[in-house]
């Protein structure tokens, strides 16, 4: 008894996993959760959620990882359940669908049933024309006991449409997972002349040049980076990339992601040159064991001197660059202000000078081994949907006995529009 009970439980679970009802429930849950993911800003710091959501809502976000919803284990778990559902459903349906695709017309059944069909008044020599008008070309015929049977199944591949679409979803979700867990995404930035390691690889990127192109209205028309790709210090490729035109080579793709300003900063201690660096937007120039630090808060490339409190630019070009900085001494903010290029920023024994503003480029480096599968999945999906919606399987059977003509025709899904078309065509050919 116990064993039988277990068998039933397993069967029930198996049935549930491959059932359409379960698939629909999963889709509804995934849809609702996805809506939540668009309402709650994603991938922000814990502080952000603490400040913007209070009490119960913050607890919910924290406990269910709603700020990182699409990467949370339970959302991924739902996706895995969906794959299992789609997979089992596809396996279970494959043989019956294949049988329907390869099904031959059952003429014995035709002979049993034809007298229950409707009769039409189309002459025998017009049958092929009528069938062709309905989309059934080259009808097959058979003579049985003085009866002539015309028959044809068309668009049988259409039965596969829904199945292919389901398989495509499995491929797409798996491809996304492969990309996520076996690929990588890193960012490098720098002004021309910078060489950076690509984290987690043997590659280095040398930024040869960066240019922002403007149109006649001084609106950015393109960002262009020239680079050299190195592997263990050896040049392996070089080229140019811009927005919408990534650099592709050696299994990695490099994208133009963003840009910003950088400055050359010099530190003097007791009037002696002490250190120099390239200081990027938002970065700190920390020296002397953390005793002194200069923060690059923001650069105004064309500062509007007529109203300095407005902190406004006249153009994006570096015609009158002014730095908004913050100065720290022994960890305490001691000064904040504006400095033009070459101005001295002084505190105790330290002096900073900043000059030569340059735009830096921020590059995104991706390697996604799942992308080809995702493309195949996308292609399969379109093929599947075209098969499902526009390769509608249809069957036509006509029996002629003496002067009587019986007709039976059916479109998959019992489509009323097809019935209407059929009646219209019958009327048209009966008149001829």
């Amino acid at each position: 008894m116990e064993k039988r009970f277990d068998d039933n439980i397993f069967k029930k679970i198996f049935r549930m996993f491959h059932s359409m009802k379960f698939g629909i429930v999963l889709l509804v849950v995934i849809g609702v959760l996805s809506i939540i993911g668009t309402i709650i800003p994603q991938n922000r710091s814990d502080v952000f959620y603490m400040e913007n959501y209070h009490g119960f809502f913050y607890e919910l976000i924290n406990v269910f990882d709603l700020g990182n919803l699409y990467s949370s284990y339970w959302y991924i778990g739902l996706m895995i359940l969906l794959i299992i559902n789609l997979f089992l459903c596809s396996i279970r349906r494959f043989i019956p669908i294949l049988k329907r695709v390869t099904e031959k017309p059952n003429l014995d059944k035709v002979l049993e049933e034809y007298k229950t069909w409707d009769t039409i008044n189309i002459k025998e020599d017009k049958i092929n024309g009528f069938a062709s008008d309905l989309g059934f070309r080259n009808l097959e015929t058979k003579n049985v006991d003085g009866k002539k049977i015309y028959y044809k199944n068309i668009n049988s591949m259409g039965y596969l449409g829904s199945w292919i679409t389901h398989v495509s979803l499995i491929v797409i979700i798996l491809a996304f997972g492969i990309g996520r867990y076996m690929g990588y995404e890193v960012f490098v930035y720098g002004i021309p002349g910078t060489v950076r390691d690509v984290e987690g690889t043997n590659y280095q990127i040398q930024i040869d040049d960066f240019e922002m192109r403007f149109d006649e209205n001084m609106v950015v028309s393109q960002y262009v980076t020239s680079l050299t790709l190195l592997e263990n210090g050896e040049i392996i490729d070089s080229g140019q990339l811009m927005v919408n035109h990534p650099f592709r080579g050696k299994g990695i793709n490099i994208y133009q992601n963003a840009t910003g300003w950088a400055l050359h900063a010099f530190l003097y201690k007791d009037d002696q040159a002490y250190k120099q660096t390239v200081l990027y937007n938002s970065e700190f120039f920390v020296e002397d064991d953390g005793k002194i630090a200069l923060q690059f808060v923001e650069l105004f490339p064309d500062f509007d001197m007529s109203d300095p409190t407005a902190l406004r630019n006249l153009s994006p070009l570096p015609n009158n660059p002014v730095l908004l900085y913050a100065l720290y001494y022994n960890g305490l903010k001691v000064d904040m202000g504006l400095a033009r290029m070459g101005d001295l920023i002084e505190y105790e024994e330290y002096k900073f000078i900043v000059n030569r503003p340059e735009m830096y480029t921020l590059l995104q480096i991706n390697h996604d081994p799942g992308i080809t599968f995702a493309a195949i999945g996308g292609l399969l999906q379109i093929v599947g949907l075209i098969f499902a919606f526009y390769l509608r399987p249809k069957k036509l059977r006509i029996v002629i006995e003496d002067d009587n003509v019986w007709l039976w025709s059916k479109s998959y899904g019992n489509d009323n529009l097809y019935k209407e078309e059929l009646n219209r065509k019958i009327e048209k050919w009966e008149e001829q």
Partner: protein
Amino acid sequence: MDLLKIETMLFYGALIGYLLSMVLFILFFVNKNDKQGKYGRNILLIGFVIHTLALVVRTINTGRLPLSNQYEFATTFAWAIALCFLIFEKKFDFRALGTFVTPILFLIIGYAAMRDKSVRPLMPALQSKWLAIHVGLAIISYGAFAVAAGVSGMYLLRDKFNQDTFFKRNIPETDKLDDLSYRAIALGFLLLSLVIITGAIWAEAAWGRYWAWDPKETWALITWIIYSIYLHLRISKGWRGERAAWFSIIGFICVIFTYVGVNTLLPSLHSYAYILYEAIGIF
């Protein structure tokens, strides 16, 4: 006279045409007067021609198809709905559909009228051959869903007043409406899948990821899920008739949110003004 002024005049000419057409189509239903329906259809046709001219002028003025911002998308979307209606009306002799489609059409073109119409150069992320393909497909897909929602509205009305001779004369039978709505959804669903796929191809080139859970992408997926549930229930569970009609209308509300709501209510990479200023970081 500059091209923008000509376009604006034509645009408002079309808007007035659509408004008049909507009023006539509503009167056609209220008064049960066939003549008003005929006038509604003719005025809509005139509005459509003027609208086409407005889009042609816009295309000449910008040197590209009008698909790049909220105004351009909305006006082209309204144009596509008008075109779909005229085709349906001609093919299925289906004038009463106008009473259900013209309010949607007027809402969309009204939304366009409230958007900034100035001509601006394309930001780098939009300078791609995929812009016309992706957005063009989205317009046709959303247009098909709009028609499906309109037909579903007719279904509900026809179902409620199935003995009324006016409705019998002007609205096809419920079975036919049900199939028409399904066919429009099937077309919209196929095109929505293509919209998502072409969007993914473009996103990979522009942003380095083919899927990033951006709110616009996610809402396109949610819309896709809603219509896929509709298709499953219809094909496998025989969900037809009233329930299917309501589903179609709810699906279209979701389409409208994906189009308008996401751009205005949720921060998204598709809100291009946002990304422009973020990326440059200087203004």
